[in-house]
């Protein structure tokens, strides 16, 4: 996650948001791409718009850039309504998914392009281009043309070009999509460093939830033109607002239950998957008999052959599949009623004493704090 001042700006009522998206709707003919969306983004955030293909995240980004006009509503930047301002007049720059480097210009000229539009004096332009080349470590590539660059190098040029004008807001459209895994991881941290160093607000669109979790100050999860949840990566992961968000981020086991009431530990549910009653620690305002769900992340399910001493939060089943991942192993456990749950355990002991193997009868157990109750 990226670092921010000790009180997160979105929790501080005295802080004014840098970007305000107010009641924005975008229609393409009959199709509603963005449906009455409201969002505040604060200065120096590294904000991610995350969601499946077609959820509207790229459309929202393009509206911030000015390439799509708002059908209804308005967009404010630092208090000023920019909804009607065309893209070439907005103090915002964008890094395109395809990089969009000008093929007939050298790397230098690509980076200098935006500065030339502002009619800056030539030596200032050269200086700024030098700075940018150093920032992305491509000083030796200044005279090359885009068709002489690798994918990673093209990406850096695109980044340098988009930062050359020192915009206050940088939009990034799936910037790491075309890179291989190792390069992607490396670039994620570099992006975070650059963002902090230059004090630019970043808004990034991605469908890769791991990426969003790594780099973001906050994530906005979108689906079908709506914002489902806006929160820090931790909150999104550990306290998803509904089944869709829980399922979209990382792995999760979602079980159904019937509300029985509250006791001193928390919410009491009766689950279809086991005869023992299940607890979770949230307080939920509901009535007896209401249907709800609880979500448990695989790493929070303890798996063992010995029956746990607790009375509650126990399921038993048989190991059907094991995926050995080196640092951890994933166990697929089939319960008596046929449902399969996923449990992950770190391989902390080199020679496994409590060795688990296929067909083993095991108990799955979790603490009341580990599960999240979901109402929808």
């Amino acid at each position, binding site marked *: 996650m990226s670092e921010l001042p000790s009180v997160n700006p979105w929790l501080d009522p005295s802080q004014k948001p840098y970007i305000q998206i107010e009641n924005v709707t975008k229609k393409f003919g009959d199709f509603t791409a963005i449906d009455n969306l409201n969002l505040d983004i604060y200065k120096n955030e590294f904000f991610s718009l995350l969601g499946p293909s077609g959820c509207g995240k790229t459309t929202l980004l393009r509206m911030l850039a000015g390439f799509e006009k708002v059908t209804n509503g308005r967009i404010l930047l630092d208090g000023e309504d920019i909804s009607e301002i065309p*893209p070439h007049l907005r103090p915002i720059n964008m890094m395109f998914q395809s990089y*969009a480097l*000008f093929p007939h210009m050298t790397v230098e000229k690509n980076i200098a392009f935006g500065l030339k*539009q502002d009619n800056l004096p030539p030596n200032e332009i050269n200086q700024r281009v030098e700075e940018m080349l150093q920032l992305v470590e491509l000083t030796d590539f200044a005279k090359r043309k885009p068709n002489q660059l690798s994918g990673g190098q093209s990406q850096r040029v695109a980044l340098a070009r988009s930062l050359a004008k020192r915009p206050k807001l940088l939009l990034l459209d799936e910037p790491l999509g075309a890179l291989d895994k190792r390069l992607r991881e490396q670039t994620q941290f570099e992006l975070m460093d650059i963002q902090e160093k230059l004090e630019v607000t970043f808004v990034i669109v991605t469908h890769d939830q791991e990426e969003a979790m790594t780099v973001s100050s906050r994530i906005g999860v979108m689906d079908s033109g709506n914002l489902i949840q806006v929160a820090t990566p931790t909150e999104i992961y550990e306290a998803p607002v509904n089944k869709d968000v829980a399922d979209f981020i990382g792995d999760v086991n979602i079980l159904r239950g019937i509300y029985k009431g509250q006791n001193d530990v928390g919410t009491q549910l009766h689950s279809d998957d086991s005869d023992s009653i299940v607890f979770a620690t949230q307080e939920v305002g509901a009535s007896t008999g209401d249907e709800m769900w609880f979500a448990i992340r695989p790493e929070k399910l303890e798996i063992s052959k010995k029956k746990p001493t607790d009375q509650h939060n126990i399921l038993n089943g048989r190991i059907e599949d094991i995926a050995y991942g080196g640092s951890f192993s994933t166990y697929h456990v089939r319960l008596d009623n046929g449902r399969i749950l996923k449990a992950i355990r770190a391989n902390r002991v080199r020679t496994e004493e409590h060795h688990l193997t296929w067909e083993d009868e095991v108990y799955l157990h979790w603490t009341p704090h580990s599960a999240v109750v979901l109402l929808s």
Partner: protein
Amino acid sequence: MFFMLPFIFVLKISLAEPIMAIPPYTALLEWGDSFFPSIRASLESYLFLFSDSLYIKAYLSSLKIAIISTILTLLIGYSIAYSVAKAPTRWRGVLLMLVILPFWTSFLIRVYAWIGILKTEGLLNLALMSIGIIDKPLIIMNTDLAVYIGIVYSYLPFMILPLYANLEKMDMSLLEAAADLGCRPFKTFWTVTIPLSMPGILAGCFLVFIPVMGEFVIPDLLGGTKTLMIGKVLWTEFFYNRDWPVASAVAIILLALLVVPIMLYQKSQEKAIS
């Protein structure tokens, strides 16, 4: 080799002498007393061309008309190609069809149609006079202007198609990137679109310039006696004067003049592919 045959024939005829016979030129090889035939060739046709200023004037006039026509065709053709490339995808096929459709009718008939439009009592003058823009008919037929109209009209598809092929493939995100970096739309056109459409522009220009240099039908039907083009001169030599050697020499020299543009065209296409 097959494509070279006509050229070789014409070259052979250009080196012969005109005679009253069928065909009206001397043979290249003559069998006399000795065992091997002797070669009878002469450069008198070529010398004749250089001596009479008519031919030099005709080449220069063709050059002038070809260059101006190419520029006019480029200006009109680029606008059309650009509009089609920017049109909604489902309309593009139809629009291109409209551009190519005239090709399906005979070239000669289309040129004749222009006579009907441009002549003194033709459609254009009738329309303008009935609206009241002019009270005396415009004299367009049998002038250089009519030739330009005819050439631009006939050769537009040759300009539009390569331009369109290039513009259609253009990455729209490049234009967005330019705008995002602060470039106004008009300037984006000159700094991004035009340089990137250069291969299409060059292809279109060569595909118009090279054939127009030797164009005959359009200047003959639409132009006046003052409209001097080398194609007409060649025709006159061949059919009226029955001087096949001179006519052939005219053709060979025209080809020699076009070698440079043709090679430039080849080079530009190779560059575009790489």
